[in-house]
Every structure is written in C-alpha cells, then in structure tokens.
C-alpha cells in the first residue's frame, strides 16, 4: 500500500547507448529540489536493468531520457517487461529528441507523457506531482 505522506519516488534512467545526460541530470535535480526521492541509473541501461531497478527501488515514476532516436525500438521492450512484472501502475514519462509523429505511438504503449525539447523542469515537476498523487490514491 502507498503511504500518502511519503515523498514521491522517481527513477531517472538513460536507456540505450546514448551518453547525453545533461537533461536527465538537470531533471533529476529539479525533482529532488521539489521534494521527491530520485534515483539516477547512469547511462547505457538495458530495459532489464531499468525495470529491475524500478522494482527494487519501489518507485512511483520512471523518467526515461533518450536522444539517440532509438526510442521506438527500446521503449516497447521496457513497457512489455513492466507488464510481465505487474508494474502497470508505475507511471512512465519520456523526454528527449522525440519527433511529434512518434508521440501517439508511444502513448499507445502506455507511456503517460512525452516531453519534447524546450519543456521546462517546472512543467515536468508539476506533471509528476499530479499523476503520482493519483497513483497513491490521494
């Protein structure tokens, strides 16, 4: 059961081989400054590593950052692993270089939100706070 008074827990992860982690780290800091508990996986994480870390850390939200264009190959695998492991209630958001036309296909996979370049950290904090609150049933 979720404890409504505990801070929201977020896993920030970099799937694939992409090493550009400025955005992921800035967002990790912004979420932490907003009072959330944040775990950052580091770069080059496989789908298995990410879902395992999310499950071990019992996070409410997974934030994935991907700039290399591999999102349509990598993200479906993460989502299907999560389904297999009964983690459908964990909120998944994605940021990075994601073309507009890929937004809907990603949402169809069960990804809650896609944040493109130029999104403010304020918007992301707000979105996560609102959607994780729903998850906790508050």
């Amino acid at each position, binding site marked *: 059961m979720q404890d409504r008074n505990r801070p929201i827990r977020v896993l920030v992860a970099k799937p694939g081989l*992409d090493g550009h982690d400025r955005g*992921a780290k800035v967002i990790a800091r912004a979420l932490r400054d907003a009072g959330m508990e944040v775990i950052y996986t*580091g770069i080059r994480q496989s789908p298995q590593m990410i879902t395992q870390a999310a499950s071990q850390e019992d996070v409410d939200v997974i934030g994935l950052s991907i700039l290399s264009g591999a999102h349509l190959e990598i993200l479906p695998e993460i989502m299907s692993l999560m389904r297999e492991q009964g983690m459908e209630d964990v909120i998944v958001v994605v940021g990075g270089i994601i073309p507009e036309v890929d937004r809907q296909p990603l949402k169809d996979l069960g990804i809650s939100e896609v944040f493109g370049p130029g999104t403010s950290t304020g918007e992301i904090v707000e979105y996560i706070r609102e959607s994780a609150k729903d998850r906790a049933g508050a």
Partner: protein
Amino acid sequence: MPSSDKKQWQRETLDPAVKRFPERRENFQTDSGLTIDPLYSPENLQAPGLDYDYNRDLGYPGEFPYTRGVQPNTYRGRVWTMRQYSGYGTAAETNARFRYLLDQGQTGLSIAFDLPTQIGYDSDHLLAKGEVGKVGVPICSLADMETLFEGIPMDKVSTSMTINATASLLLCFYIVAARKQGVSQDQISGTVQNDILKEYIARGTYAYPPRPSMRLVVDIFKYCAENVPKWNTISISGYHMREAGATAVQELAFTFSNAIAYVQAALDAGLKIDDFGPRLSFFFVAQNNLFEEVAKFRAARRMWARIMKDRFGAKDPRSMMLRFHTQTAGVTLTAQQTDNNLIRCTVQALSAILGGSQSLHVNSRDEALALPSEDSVQLSLRTQQILAFESGAADVVDPLGGSYYVESLTNELEAKALEYIRRIDDLGGSVAAIEQGFQVREIGDAAYQHRQEVESGDRTIVGVNRFTTEEPPIEGLMRVDEAAARTQVERLEQLRRERDDSKVKSALERLKQVAQTEENTVPAILECVENYCTLGEVCEVLRGVFGEQEGAISF
C-alpha cells in the same frame, strides 16, 4: 570638460545618467558569469598588477605566444576548412551525402559514427538494438569503410573522425581502405578525435577504464609519429563538456588539463615532446556570447603555447601552435521557432572566425528535433560561405585584437582557467580528478544553474521563455530509414561467411597477446583489419584484457 580618466567619467557622466534611467539589469555577466563593466578603456589593461605587455602577451600572428593567430595571415591565404559533420543509415547512404557536400563546395569531411561503432559493438549486438545508423554511420569492418569512401579520393580529401574509445581501430580501417585505393599512409590527412578523457566527463562513449584507454591514445601518437605524418592524432575537445553545461572557463580549464594528461602520458611512454606535439589538435564550441567566445579562442592559443613551452619544454614552434576545429553550440538550438536557429548559428560561427578557427561546422536549424535535412545542411554550408566571402571578417587577422573589452576578457578567462588547472593538478591531474568525479560535479552544477536562470526568466531564450508564439509542428524532418539497420546486419553476416576464419582467429589471438604486454597495439589492430575482423570482435578482445568502464550515477 571631458573626463580625464574612467573614474571621473563614471562619477560625473555615467552615474547621473544611470540614476535618471536605470539599466536593464542590476548585473551584466558573460555566459560564464564574468562581470561586465559598462565600458572598457585603457585602464582595464593598464591597472596595477595586470602588467599588460603587447609583445609578451599578444605578439604578432604566427609568432609566440600566438594569441593573435597561428598563421601569419590567417584566412588571407586560405579560408578555414568547411567541415560539416555527417553520417547516418549505412555506409552507402553516407557516401552519397559526402559526395553531395563535396559537390556543394565543402572542403573537408567529418564522419559521424553511430553509437555501437563508437562504443565497440557490431551492428547485430544485443546492445546495438535501435541504435544502428541513427546518430551516425555504422562501420563494422574494412568493407564498410571501403564503401564509405567509394569514389572519394583519399589522398585529396582530409577527413575528421569523431571516434574515441575505438579510435585506433577506425584509423586502421581508414589506413587500409586508403591503401586499397593506392594511397599510402604517409599521404592521408585528417584527424581522429581520440580524446577519451572527456568521454568520462561528458558524452559517454567510453569502453574501457581510463588508464588502459590512455595507453591506446598514446599508441596512436607513437604509430602516427613514425608512419602517418600528416595525421592529427587527437582532437582534445572542450566542445562536449561545454555542451554538458560547462562555462567557457571550465571548457578551457578541463580541455587543457586533459591535454596535459595526454602529453604527460606520452612523455612517460618515452615519446619526445616535439615528435608528437605538432600533431595535437583541439576542438571548441562557438557559443552565444560573441565577445566572450572570441576571447576564449584567443586565450586558448596563448595558454597552449605557454603550457607547451614552459611546462613541457617544447622547442619546435609547431608544438606550441594551437590549431582547432569549432562547432556551433547544439544546446542553443531550440525546438521552438526553428528558423531562429539559423541566426544563432550565424552569430556563433562569426565568433569562430573572429577567433581564428582552422575549421568549422555550423549546426542546422532543425537539429533540436532530428538529424538535419539536406536543405538545412546546405544552409549551414552557405552560412559559412557568406561569412568567408561576403562579410569581410576573413580579410584581416584577429580583427578584435586591441579591443579593450576583448583583451580584458582574454586575460580574465586565462587567469580563471589557470586557477582551475592548478586545482586539478592538486587533485593529482585530470585522470585522478575524473576518478573522483570532480569535473562531472562542477559541470552538473553549472548546467543546473543555467537551467534555473532560464526558468526564472533571468536568462532570455527567444521563442522559448520570451517572444513565444503558437506554431504547428515542423514538417520535412529527416528520418533514418529503418531498413538501413537490416541492410547493415545482412552485410555483416555476408562478411562473416566470406572471410577466412583461420586468419581472423589468429589475428585476434595476436592482438590479445600484444594487449597484455606494453607493445604498441596499432600494428596488431591493423593486422586484424586487413583480415576483415569486425569492430565488435576486436573490441571484445580488448574488453577482455582491459575490463569495462562502469557509468557514474551521481547527479
């Protein structure tokens, strides 16, 4: 009565005016946080303690300390090399893009490799899934390099390769592909980035831990000093650290502390400073703050000349000359109002020209969203051509030399960067500082501060936090064809079927033995390449001997 000095002017003329009409901001600062006075005058250079000396600190272009340029006449002989970074899909598709760029008047090539190639995995490796051909071209073997250069004379074109962990391998692919065109290794010219240290600090395409990686870097220095005399053996890069959030001061400091580590490693391996010093080259960003960037390039030349002469005792002037490539700043490209990026790139490119860069890549307007379309790349090239042949900026050496402001910034950036280098020296040098996470922390702090300034509105980004408009999604973005990855994997499978397996095995075995000793690895890698060993096979051998680097998780 006119003021007789700056203090009087400030008291009697400036202050009363500001009192009536307050300035736009309380503090004016450069992008790197240096405070900007309202006006610069001779006092800024002649203040006690500064001890400004034209001959010692600036001198003449082509002469020590090269502040004003490494060539006596800079662009009056030949303008900079226009070198647009490109690569995607397959070797055949990239070959077509290269030929197009050369047809359009580009004067050098710059290869973007995909991530599996940069990290040492073949296109059919599990970890390569989704990444093949995406951010660059996949090159898994000599056969791919031969295709990449089909119809491009390798004795005529100079080629820059953004390749680090696998640099020696890609250089060997290039050497052997050239040989197959009848071009010997002493005729080819170009650059391998080969700057592994900044990969641990930013960018992240490392494979092995830092210390064995340093040996691979020095192996290239050694091999090229003896065999590939026209090759730039490294491009020590501030670009990616700055893109990750570093300030201009940090860009200078971390680049040169990495450079110091490479030079020291080569000296420790028994090389002589003037045997490899002239082939060291550099890579910086051209960011938004026009004058700070020009000052940065000038400070960089002076710093490097003094580091090589005073710290390492170089005697050959060519060892002291800082030659560098520049690229405009990817992080400043906005997804909103993308045509604005053309203007940003133009201002940034101008700073590189005013700063005396030897070669330049201008980013494209659509790159916040995708790889650039062919039209966008053509505009980037045209930007360079307009600057070169219409603006007049290329007709005089160091046009901003003597500007009180630019000279003051040059001095200040140098002093602050030297202070940082001393801190890194105290930590045990760049490699030790990297192992302690020093640079990553410093850059992370600067990146976060920058972000907060944008969000508070303290820092304006046109079209993002001011002057915004509603706009439809942009059309005509480049998309890498998914079939490219399948074609690449089929090519690789065909290669594995057709080559001589026993030769492959013995070449890989020989490489393993060499890697375990202190012998130069390059000849053994060449032998692997000649026998069509794949990139993944070679790197697997080296991972086995050297181990793998783990990523950092602090933020």
